Each structure stands twice: as structure tokens, then as C-alpha cells.
């Protein structure tokens, strides 16, 4: 194997470590808020440091690769997308942490089951985890079609987020004493929606790497129909 390929493989595996870390953080933050598990929330908060450290490790290796190997063409696109994916993952990690902070410091009881149901929280969490999984596979398999499907899932997340506002408003009206807590829950929903956005960015970065196609700022509706589901 050529040295460039060895380096690329090493970069991929460092990013995979980052990806696993962040995915665990996200998964745990969903569990923590759903089950009102404050121990788990504290675990997430203390893990956040490793996520930041791993981001630096990946960044650093990308910089070295650029400086020493002068990558061009597919290698250049690879390392550029990797830098962006890494940064997006770190942000997703931040969102998981802020959900954990809510659970650890502001949540006082588990989210009422009927509220969770109306908010479609489980569906929202599952969709984001699925996006995360698909984006990861798309990168590993260099599959830009799969990557563009992540964008479709993000539409689902956006809709759930949009529908959350009237649900929360109605709940506050019915339970005015829980206003502060419900606003915290609204923040959780917003963080999850932002995770979806970041995962969409990652999917776009994968497409750029694989196809050299710039999806950013092109409307999703301009994608071929078959890629929309």
C-alpha cells in the first residue's frame, strides 16, 4: 500500500473513534432525558472532554496529512470533508452535553409520558440515530446515494421539531406550574433538531468527497426524486 493510502486509512480510523464517541454521547443523552437518569447525565458531561480531545487529534492529523502529503483530487476532497465532518461531530457532541446539563441540573422528573408521546420524542431520537448510522455507513462505503438519504431523514426531524411548539404551548397552558421545565424540554427538542442539521452537513460532506458534488445551499428538492425517500 502507498504511504498516502496508509495515512488515509489511519485518518479514517481516528475519525471512526470520534464517531463512536459522539454516537455514544448522543445515545446516552437521549436515554438520560427519557429516563430522567442523572447519573448517566453526569457521565455524559464528564465524557465531553474526551470528545473535544478526540476532535483535536483528528484535526491535527488532517493538518499533518495536508502539510506532508500535498493531497490532491480525491485525497484532497477526502481530507477537506474529514475536517468538516470532524467539526460537525464535535458540535453534535456539544448538543448531547447540553441535553445532559439540562437533565443533571434542571430536570426534576421524567417527562410526562403523554407529553413525550405528543412530541414524538422517541421517533425524533430514533431518526437522528438512524441518520448518524446512515451517514457513517455512507462515508465508510463511499456511497453518496445513501448520504443523500440522510437529508431526507432530516426533513422528518425538522417537521417533528416544528410540530413541537403548539404541543408544548398547550401543555404549558394546562400545567402552568411546569413552565420552566417545559421550556427546558423545548430546548432539548431544539438541540436534537440541530443535531439533525449537523448530520445533514456531514452527509453533504460525504457527497462532496465521493462525487465532488456541492450539495450545500442547493435545495434538497432539486435532488433526483428517487433519492428523496
Amino acid at each position, binding site marked *: 500500500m*502507498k504511504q*498516502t493510502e496508509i495515512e488515509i486509512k489511519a485518518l479514517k480510523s481516528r475519525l471512526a473513534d470520534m464517531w463512536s464517541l459522539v454516537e455514544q454521547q448522543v445515545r446516552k443523552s437521549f436515554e438520560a432525558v427519557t429516563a430522567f437518569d442523572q447519573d448517566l447525565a453526569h457521565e455524559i458531561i464528564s465524557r465531553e472532554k474526551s470528545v473535544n480531545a478526540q476532535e483535536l487529534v483528528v484535526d491535527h492529523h488532517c493538518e499533518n496529512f495536508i502539510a506532508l502529503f*500535498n493531497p*490532491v*483530487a*480525491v485525497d*484532497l*476532497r477526502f481530507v477537506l470533508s474529514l475536517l468538516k465532518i470532524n467539526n460537525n461531530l464535535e458540535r453534535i457532541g456539544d448538543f448531547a452535553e447540553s441535553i445532559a446539563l439540562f437533565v443533571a441540573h434542571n430536570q426534576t422528573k421524567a417527562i410526562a409520558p403523554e407529553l413525550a408521546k405528543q412530541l414524538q420524542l422517541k421517533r425524533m431520537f430514533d431518526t437522528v440515530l438512524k441518520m448518524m448510522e446512515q451517514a457513517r455507513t455512507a462515508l465508510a462505503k463511499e456511497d453518496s446515494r445513501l448520504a443523500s438519504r440522510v437529508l431526507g431523514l432530516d426533513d422528518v426531524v425538522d417537521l417533528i421539531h416544528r410540530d413541537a411548539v403548539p404541543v408544548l404551548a398547550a401543555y404549558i397552558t394546562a400545567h402552568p406550574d411546569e413552565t420552566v421545565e417545559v421550556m427546558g424540554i423545548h430546548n432539548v427538542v431544539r438541540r436534537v433538531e440541530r443535531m439533525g442539521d449537523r448530520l445533514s452537513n456531514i452527509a453533504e460532506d460525504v457527497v462532496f468527497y465521493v462525487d*465532488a458534488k456541492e450539495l450545500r445551499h442547493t435545495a434538497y428538492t432539486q435532488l433526483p426524486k428517487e433519492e428523496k425517500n
Partner: protein
Amino acid sequence: MENQTIISAQGVNFWYGDYHALRDISLDMEAHTVTAFIGPSGCGKSTFLRLLNRMNDLVDGARLEGRILIEGEDIYARGVMVDELRKRVGMVFQKPNPFPKTIFENIAYGLRVNGVRDKAFIESRVEESLKGAALWGEVKDKLKKPAFELSGGQQQRLCIARALAVQPSILLMDEPASALDPISTSKIEELIYELKTEYTIVIVTHNMQQAARVSDRTAFFYLGELIEYDETKKIFLNPEKAQTQNYITGRFG
């Protein structure tokens, strides 16, 4: 800036005896652009470059098919004066090859050979050419010194000045910096940027990053064929052909 084709190769095939060195090459180059030729050794870059000012004419058993037009004129047509052609199409080689003469004479010589006698005119043209090659400041006080006293990089710029003296419109450079250290190399690259406003430049280089830095368009040759020819940005970010990608990313062979 005009988008005018200044060099046009049309269906060029070339043989050294039985050896088919160039296969059906067609490409157009625009005025005031830099075109880089890249590709593994022996793929025909120099051969093609040399066809552009008929440097292969004297090679035994060489044969050309197809047409090469420069400024619209078929340079292999009957009646074309090779000396006149080479005034329009100058060439700089890999190894600096100054004449064993003074710095001044290296440039004046070409003018005299071309029948220029006016001393004042020659002096001003020498100065102009040395300025054009970004060498004037370094040599203006030692024009009477032998050219061989200059450093390798300075000698190469002297050769560029010599080529500029006869006011060509096209400058061919065959690995002009491959024998130079990084500082001299970057001076040559700077010079190429500047020269582009007045000349059309075709450069053969083995240095991928150099091709990326200096050229507007890049042509990738392989085994005598032109595999891909496109904007340099496109070639280095997203080449169309797998062979191009493999070559520029170092995955070849």
C-alpha cells in the same frame, strides 16, 4: 482578456522511426495562459512540446501526421521559415544552457544573429529582457561578467531573458526548474505568473504542485496519449479520468 486560441494541435501523431510516440493528440491553448504538461517519464510531453517549434525536425526517421497551427498558421506547411517560427516560439530547457559569453552577450547574440546592428537598440533590449526575466537588479552592475559566474537559478532566468529578447509570443519550458533549489524554483514560478500577461506559456513539469501552482490548464499524457486536458483546478480537485487521478495522487503503477 481575449479567449483566443493561439496554439491548436489537430490529430497529431508522431513517430520516432517505428516508435509511435504521440497518438492522435488534439488540443487548443489560449493566448496569455499557462498550460502544464504532466505525465510519467517517456509519455511524450517533451516530444509534443518540441513539435511546437519544430525542434524534432532534425531527428532521424521522425514522422509527423496531423496539423499544428500557431496563430492560425500551419507551422509544418511548406514555405514556413523555421527561424521565423522560433522567434515567435521561444524555448527554455531543463538545464540552464547559457553561451560561454558575458551576460550581456548572451542576450545580444540572438539579436545580432537576427541582423540587429543598432547598439543603442541592443542595449535597451538587453535591459528590457533582463527586467522581463526578473534578473536586471541582480546583474545590472556585472553585465560584462561571464554568464557562468551566475547561480543556476540566475542562469535559468538569463536563458529566459535570452528567449524574451527576440519578443516571442509563446514560451515553451521543458522542466525549467527541475535542476534548481526551492528558492530559485519559486522565483521562476513568480516569473511565469508575470510573463503570462504578455506571453503564452507551455511548461512541462514533473512537479505536480508546480503544475497546480503555475498553470491555468493542465494536460495529462500517458503512453503517448492525451488522457485528460482541463482547467488545472478541475484536474487537481476532481479529474474525470481514473488514470489522471491515480497519477496525480501518486497511486500509479
